[in-house]
């Protein structure tokens, strides 16, 4: 187990020039010993690159990777003592489940009785005990992925276990189970886990700390609550949540914000710089308001969707859409009618140049 520090940049090109040539822009980041982390971002944001840099499959073109303060940049995955689980199950076809699980230990010349005990323990955790003597080749995809997970977890002394979108090939109802299992295993084994995914639900439920990435940059590191309540970048606000945060461009004069002709007074305790800003508010916190109420904006109803648990209202403030999640019993004006929406709440955030102020 180890604390991992990154201070590096990586480009797949031999001679990178602009920012767009980098798969990972210069970044500094630490993963604490025993923490559960998720790297979250859209495809091509650099999260798998970062994972491969941590594991040692990829050597960063600049900078250092340190485990417990020790420079391991030039070391192989084996020397770093890293375990990694891939997107598609990798199993050794000719071996049984037990032999598959024992393989990383056997390669490291662990005594046979220790291997047996550890394999038994891991199989127990992953509910593979009944299939230990079966051929791995004939099993279903989820059982194969469990074997891959097991091979990642079987070594007690690993520096960290890395997961590269490991649940992509798994059926939705098994995903839940496996994710719960992983979390439970994390509590039992106290390993450092880094989990790459583009599924926010997966990231937020699995990890203590989520690293949100876009275009080779880690834009925010935080708990699920921090990402939800205080996104430090408009990208995070938009990416986290379903639907994402509403953003409305406006002008601030120090006391109130002008949006689409409406004057909204700032809530107490908010210091917002004068000039062009963006107001961000989660659809969960948008409520219906009386006409002309302070902090409310006049919008036009564009669409109402009944999603069962709630109503999803899409309204327009000028050219900008505003979404709101409302209780299913809410009575709404019909499409095309005006509606007043309360935007100024304690949960409202303000952004200048896409960054939180």
């Amino acid at each position: 187990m180890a604390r991992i520090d990154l201070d590096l940049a990586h480009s797949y090109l031999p001679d990178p020039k602009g920012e767009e040539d980098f798969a990972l822009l210069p970044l500094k980041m630490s993963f604490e010993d025993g923490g559960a982390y998720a790297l979250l971002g859209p495809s091509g944001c650099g999260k798998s690159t970062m994972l491969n840099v941590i594991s040692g499959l990829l050597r960063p073109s600049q900078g250092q990777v340190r485990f417990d303060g020790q420079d391991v940049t030039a070391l192989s995955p084996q020397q770093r003592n890293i375990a990694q689980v891939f997107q598609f199950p990798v199993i050794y076809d000719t071996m049984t489940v037990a032999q598959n699980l024992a393989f990383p230990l056997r390669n490291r010349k662990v005594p046979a009785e220790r291997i047996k005990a550890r394999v038994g323990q891991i199989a127990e955790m992953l509910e593979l005990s009944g299939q230990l003597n079966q051929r791995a080749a004939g099993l279903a995809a989820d059982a194969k992925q469990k074997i891959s997970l097991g091979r990642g977890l079987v070594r007690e002394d690993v520096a960290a276990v890395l997961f590269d979108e490991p649940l992509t090939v798994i059926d939705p109802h098994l995903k839940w189970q496996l994710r719960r299992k992983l979390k439970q295993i994390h509590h039992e084994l106290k390993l450092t886990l880094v989990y790459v995914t583009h599924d926010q639900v997966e990231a937020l439920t699995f990890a203590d700390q989520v690293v949100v990435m876009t275009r080779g940059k880690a834009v925010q590191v935080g708990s699920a609550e921090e990402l939800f309540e205080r996104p430090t970048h408009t990208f995070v606000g938009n990416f986290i949540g379903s639907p994402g945060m509403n953003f409305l461009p406006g002008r601030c004069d120090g006391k109130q914000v002008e949006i689409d002709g409406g004057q909204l007074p700032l809530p107490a305790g908010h210091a917002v710089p004068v000039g062009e800003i963006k107001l961000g508010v989660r659809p969960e916190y948008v409520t219906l308001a009386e006409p002309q109420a302070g902090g409310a904006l006049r919008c036009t109803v564009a669409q109402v969707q009944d999603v069962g648990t709630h109503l999803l209202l899409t309204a327009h403030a000028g050219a900008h859409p505003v979404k709101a999640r409302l209780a299913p019993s809410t009575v709404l004006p019909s499409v095309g009618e005006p509606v007043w929406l309360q935007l100024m709440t304690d949960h409202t955030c303000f952004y200048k140049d896409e960054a939180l102020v």
Partner: protein
Amino acid sequence: MSTTVKPVNQRAWWLILPVVICVAFSAVLPLMTVVNYSVQDIFGPERRVFVGTEWFASVLRDEELHGALLRQLGFSLSVLVVEIPLGIALALAMPAQGWKSSAVLVLVALSLLIPWNVVGTIWQIYGRADIGLLGATLDKLGIDYSYTGDATDAWLTVLAMDVWHWTPLVALLAFAGLRSIPDAYYQAARIDGASKFAVFRYIQLPKMRGVLMIAVLLRFMDSFMIYTEPFVLTGGGPGNSTTFLSQFLTQKAVGQFDLGPAAAFSLIYFLIILLLCFVLYNWMQRVGTGNQEAGHG
């Protein structure tokens, strides 16, 4: 009438008629002609006698044929034992990508493009002690080598020729098998701390099973029917040390015009290949899978 009965349309038979005709003319009719010859003694166009299984019995008792069959089995076995491991080793050594890979692929495939009789001629000259590179070199080294005079030398030369000619096929098949292994397997093996041998034993070899099976069957069938190269190189000699089954058959059918025994022997030859391929295929399906019951698929 139950609603689950499928509609029956007998006109669908017309659709398979072209295939039936093709197979009839290309395989069934020629084979039946051979069967026809094998049960008759033909003296002339008008005079023929039905002899039943007489030819089969006499062919099966033929000492010369037993010799040819043993030589053939020994040769095919040697071909497999040498070419399969050598082909795998070659494939493992070939560069995986870039222009080097393409260049090596072309180089390796060169010998496959040469016609059989040319291969025989090349080696005939290559092995000559006066002007051939191989023969002259061995002669200079003081090794007494003559593929026309010594049975062992002749046999080894035919084997070397086949290895030179056909190992590239095994190598190309194995190479294709290796390339189809996803990168994640190699990465996982590195992370699991697997040695080079373990990667070969537990990833590469199992993943090549399919193509290797094709390679073994192809090389077995081809070498079991080998004719042109030894015919050009040694003509079956010295003595009959390199007379393999197909050459023996040709001598009987064309040389002595014993159509009856030759036809009977053709059928036996065909059945031997069929049987051995069946055994090989089933064995390779099962080996390494731990499946002890008869394995199909």
